[in-house]
């Protein structure tokens, strides 16, 4: 199935979980990433079980602490 990851269409296996997608996308500091699915926050405790569907839009939001 096709999903949109960070604005880019990707082919992934049917019923992929958020945790699997995080691994597949080599997300930096995966323990601390915020994930939104179709403009809703996904709860991190559900990453292992929440599956994605055709056409879902996923965003990874990262901590960025620098500034000085």
């Amino acid at each position, binding site marked *: 199935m096709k999903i949109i990851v960070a604005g880019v269409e990707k082919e992934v296996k049917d019923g992929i979980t958020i945790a699997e997608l995080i691994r597949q996308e080599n997300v930096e500091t995966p323990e*601390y990433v915020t994930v939104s699915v179709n*403009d*809703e*926050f996904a709860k991190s405790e559900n990453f292992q079980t929440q599956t994605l569907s055709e056409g879902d839009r996923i965003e990874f*939001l990262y901590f*960025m602490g*620098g*500034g*000085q």
Partner: protein
Amino acid sequence: MAFTNEQLERYSRHIILKEIGVGGQKKLLNSKVLIIGAGGLGAPAAMYLAAAGVGTIGIADADEVDLSNLQRQIIHATDNLGQAKVLSAKETINRMNPDVTVNTYRTFVASDNIMELIGDYDFIIDGTDNFPAKFLINDACVMAKKPFSHAGIIRFKGQLMTYVPGEGPCYRCVFKNPPPKDAVPTCKQAGVVGAMGGVIGSLQAMEAIKYITGTGDLLTGYLLTYDALSMEFRKIRLPKDTSGCAVCGDNPSITELIDYEQAECSGV
């Protein structure tokens, strides 16, 4: 307040803009912006706001100018080494624009001083480099109903978002709690291109100018990310539902400010 001839000339490129004009320039001259952190983000933000004629600029920072700062903190120069950053910044602003009153606060922000610091200001710019400060600024601005611009930069990447009370998610809606100490790299550990502060800090100044003059659409409800290596800007829509947020939600569990443990490399 009538403009002097010098002011009409100085701000002529603003005044000619239909979105700003005489009225908008007056708003800028009557406005007060607080910049927390006179570093990579705060330096360009402060300089563009000073040049724009923001009438009162507050600068809070406890540090002194260090040689390793000068690669990006363009409000400071080589002859400011060792000087308090707030004083170095004030000198630069005074040279740029005599219309600007600069208030300096040589302190780190903490739960016992931030409400007083932000109280007098119309808009706050988070130019800090550590998560305890970023969460503190967010929570204080939510509690005091103050708009602010959050930003972060590292390596070749940067991001920012704007919070306006009642108009969308706050920083904690997105990021919940600070990561543990040293879990996420700091600029000192990971490096940052100096121009990144210029890009993102200038965008923070732009958000302040738009807020003050009531012009255009603010970055509320969005996170703007910038990747310099791929040369991509992305405006990511944030979830609208803020009701469950621990600080800005309907039943906030955080009602007092929190001093989180400072990260190892903070304040550098």
